[in-house]
């Protein structure tokens, strides 16, 4: 059951260039989509999210685009920096009632930003 898919296990990008990480989903009932960043030996750290009723959300160097018809979202990092090197998880959230959100994660994409 792969409701959230990240088809690229790894991505290498030159410092200063754009990093584009992709994610596909199958469940149209998801109401939020989130990106988490994870360094080794640490927990996932929230990066940015987007509501299912929007198509773009921007926060500094990070922009998330959502294409609902294609059930696809992407995270753009511009410009990429060596400190961005980490595993990026796409996650989809379904509101479970009474304030509880359950996240379904993709397998992650390991981003390497080359100086």
């Amino acid at each position, binding site marked *: 059951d792969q409701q959230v898919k990240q088809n690229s296990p790894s991505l290498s990008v030159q410092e200063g260039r754009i990093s584009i990480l992709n994610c596909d989903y199958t469940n149209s009932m998801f109401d939020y989509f989130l990106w988490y960043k994870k360094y080794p030996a640490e927990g996932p750290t929230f990066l940015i999210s987007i509501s299912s009723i929007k198509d773009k959300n921007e926060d500094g160097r990070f922009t998330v685009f959502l294409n609902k018809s294609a059930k696809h979202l992407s995270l753009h990092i511009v410009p990429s920096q060596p400190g961005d090197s980490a595993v990026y998880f796409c996650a989809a959230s379904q509101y479970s009632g009474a304030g*509880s959100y*359950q996240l379904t994660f993709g397998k992650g994409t390991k981003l390497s930003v080359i100086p």
Partner: protein
Amino acid sequence: EPEVTQTPSHQVTQMGQEVILRCVPISNHLYFYWYRQILGQKVEFLVSFYNNEISEKSEIFDDQFSVERPDGSNFTLKIRSTKLEDSAMYFCASNNGLGEKLFFGSGTQLSVL
């Protein structure tokens, strides 16, 4: 910035033994979660907890698992009789109930021998 803390960072146990993984969620958060990640696999939802009871649980969270909030600050995951396949990184998370963002701890690496 407030954070979710988990102890221990590593736990090694023998198959069949009971383990308790501990978490201190962010202090004003109301919703608590356990997730796990088996090496090389996805982060998977185990259970959510609100108002001193389980809100939701996944198929993974069988009778061997239980959660408890024994006091006002701790949130624990107990595995009664560990199996080899319970070896994973276990993440605790919390949420203030006002949005979709979950805050995760650094995890406990459980190794069952």
